[in-house]
């Protein structure tokens, strides 16, 4: 069963990693913990259900499954990116010069607003999605792996590689790195700070949307409260890997997924403490390496 738990853990970790990237990118640039990020993921899940529902009604999945998923992802990413950028404009930009605590409170407020907005607009009930991709998986070294899991793993690895290339190679990526190092200096060097921050929120939210769609494809349900738990786990993953570090978020996400699965799978007594394992490892890591696994050592400027 080792292989099975490994696959379970990697698929779950991929979702955590995608959400964690949004936390870590925003933190890297603004030193802000965007608590509304989990809600963007939740919006992505709802949009996934709505778009897939509409496309299924139109009969597209029987025509082309790949096209259906691409359209769903595109619409969900577009909407969530718009939400992310708008959240930054409304809730964080006016407070950029304020004390560090103010945008944090604003983020918590944004999270509550989005949660209740979805509750009122979509209802308190669980939204469900009938299975779109067939369950019939195949055997892989004694473990059963489903097409959804392959899709989650493959696409998340691809996205992470693309993101890494974007940050390290492109002009905008360079501007992002410059902004995260020193915002004032970057702006003096001609970097459009507002644009860079907007792009950061746009990318982070689009990644959360992908995670949301993947989760609905895999688990088939969405709930207005789902962003809270997932956001907390992804934030843990970001801290575990070292907040502010992009490879750290990826590593942290996969690690968290694996720890949870192997931890809960040890015995039946352990199953009740699934969440405890993740936080135990976090505490130990933070005691030994306060800046996380791949985090930069912060040097206090004197």
């Amino acid at each position, binding site marked *: 069963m080792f292989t099975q738990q490994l696959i379970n853990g990697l698929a779950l970790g991929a979702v955590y990693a995608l959400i964690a990237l949004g936390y870590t990118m925003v933190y890297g640039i603004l030193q802000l913990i965007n608590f509304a990020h989990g809600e963007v993921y939740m919006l992505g899940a709802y949009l996934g259900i709505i778009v897939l529902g509409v496309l299924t009604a139109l009969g597209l999945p029987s025509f082309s499954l790949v096209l259906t998923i691409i359209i769903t992802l595109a619409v969900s990413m577009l909407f969530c990116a718009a939400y992310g950028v708008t959240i930054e404009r409304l809730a964080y930009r006016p407070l950029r010069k304020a004390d560090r605590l103010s945008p944090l409170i604003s983020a918590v407020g944004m999270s509550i607003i989005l949660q209740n907005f979805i509750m009122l607009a979509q209802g308190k009930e669980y939204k469900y999605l*009938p299975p779109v991709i067939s369950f019939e998986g195949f055997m892989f070294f004694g473990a059963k792996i489903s097409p959804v899991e392959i899709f989650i793993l493959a696409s998340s690895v691809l996205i992470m590689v693309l993101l890494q290339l974007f940050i390290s190679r492109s002009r905008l990526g360079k501007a992002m790195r410059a902004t995260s190092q020193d915002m004032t200096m970057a702006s003096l060097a001609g970097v459009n700070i507002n644009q860079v921050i907007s792009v950061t929120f746009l990318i982070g939210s689009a990644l959360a949307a992908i995670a949301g769609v993947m989760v609905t494809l895999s*688990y088939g349900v969405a709930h207005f409260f789902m962003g809270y738990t997932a956001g907390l786990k992804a934030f843990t993953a970001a801290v575990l890997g070292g907040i502010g570090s992009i490879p750290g978020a990826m590593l942290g996400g996969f690690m968290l997924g694996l720890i*949870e*699965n192997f931890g809960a*799978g040890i015995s*039946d007594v352990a199953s009740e403490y*699934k969440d405890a394992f993740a936080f135990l490892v976090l505490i130990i890591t933070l005691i030994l390496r306060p800046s996380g696994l791949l985090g930069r050592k912060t040097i206090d400027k004197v």
Partner: protein
Amino acid sequence: MFRRNSIAAVLAAILFGMTGCAQQDDQSIRIGAVGPMTGDQSKMGVDLRNAAELAVGEWNEKGGVLGRKITLLPGDDQADPKQAVSIANKFINQKVAAVVGHWNSSCSIPASKYYQDANVVMITPATTNPKLTQQGFHNVFRVCGTDDQQGRIAAAFILASGRYKRIAIIHDKTAYGQGLADYFKQALGTRVQVVYYGGIVQRDSDYKAVLTAIKETKADLYYFGGIYPEAGRLVRQAREIGLNIPMMTGDGVYDPTFINIAGKSAEGTYVTFGKDPAGLTTAKLFMEKYRKSYGEPGPYSIYAYDAANIILNAIERTGIIEKDPKTGKETLVIDGRKMAVYISRTTFQGAFGDISFDKNGDVTRAPYVVWQVKDGVFKQVQ
């Protein structure tokens, strides 16, 4: 919305209070019907009130009980234990003869003590927590089943089938879910082997770790104590990791949403729930009458209807009309103790079949049967 609700609640309270006062003088019999009538569980309370209203209406048409008309006093406990106690006190002040309610276990249990002190009979149509009737109160009855009975029925089914020897048990760590799982485990005894007993986190989305561990134990059935959203995800993910054994679960999963979430993977799932009322002519008659006035009956409406009928029946049999020798005025005297004794010793012909009670006030007949999901719908197995 909150404000509008509270204004409505105040108006309703004034209105009901007034009717209560107005009827102090007349000779009508007052029956309380209480449950959550506002908030997210409001449908449950309204189903209860409608069914009780239907029963009262039928008695009134026949001329009432012992020549007296019956008035139904609705109460809204908002599924809140504090509110439930205050409604209980209000009912007692209004001198109700008996109460149909409450809905939630958390409301029925604290309220029952006040009814007991005031000697008022209460019959709950929906509270399944076994503790309610274990308090030793003479006045408390329930017409639905209990979670321990449910666990027993499920265990008996598994033992009788002979097909399932290795059982895994999981629960959602709530009072209902874990309680049900524990009663089930207890009832299984030693004839089959419990190979796994663990908990999952409610609202978590991924249960594959636990399911993989169950797969490793080579169990041939898993029991789940919990509610339909988790159950739907469990059976779906079980199929994904290739765990092809059936799930068995309780009344909390008896909801079409379960099948909607799980799709084809719900097929074969066993659920314990009440008998199919459609098979009984009396139940069919009730459902037709209910539909005519209120629309589709809720899952527990028929229980509330039977509870109201039992109460009115008991009043008719035990009520005494006393005549004042001086004024010649006749008053109806209703004694809660005599009513309770009568109810506990009698078999009633309810819309949902014969009802009799054991010494605790629980129904004696096996109230649960095993259902199974077949072709996308719940079907009764036996």
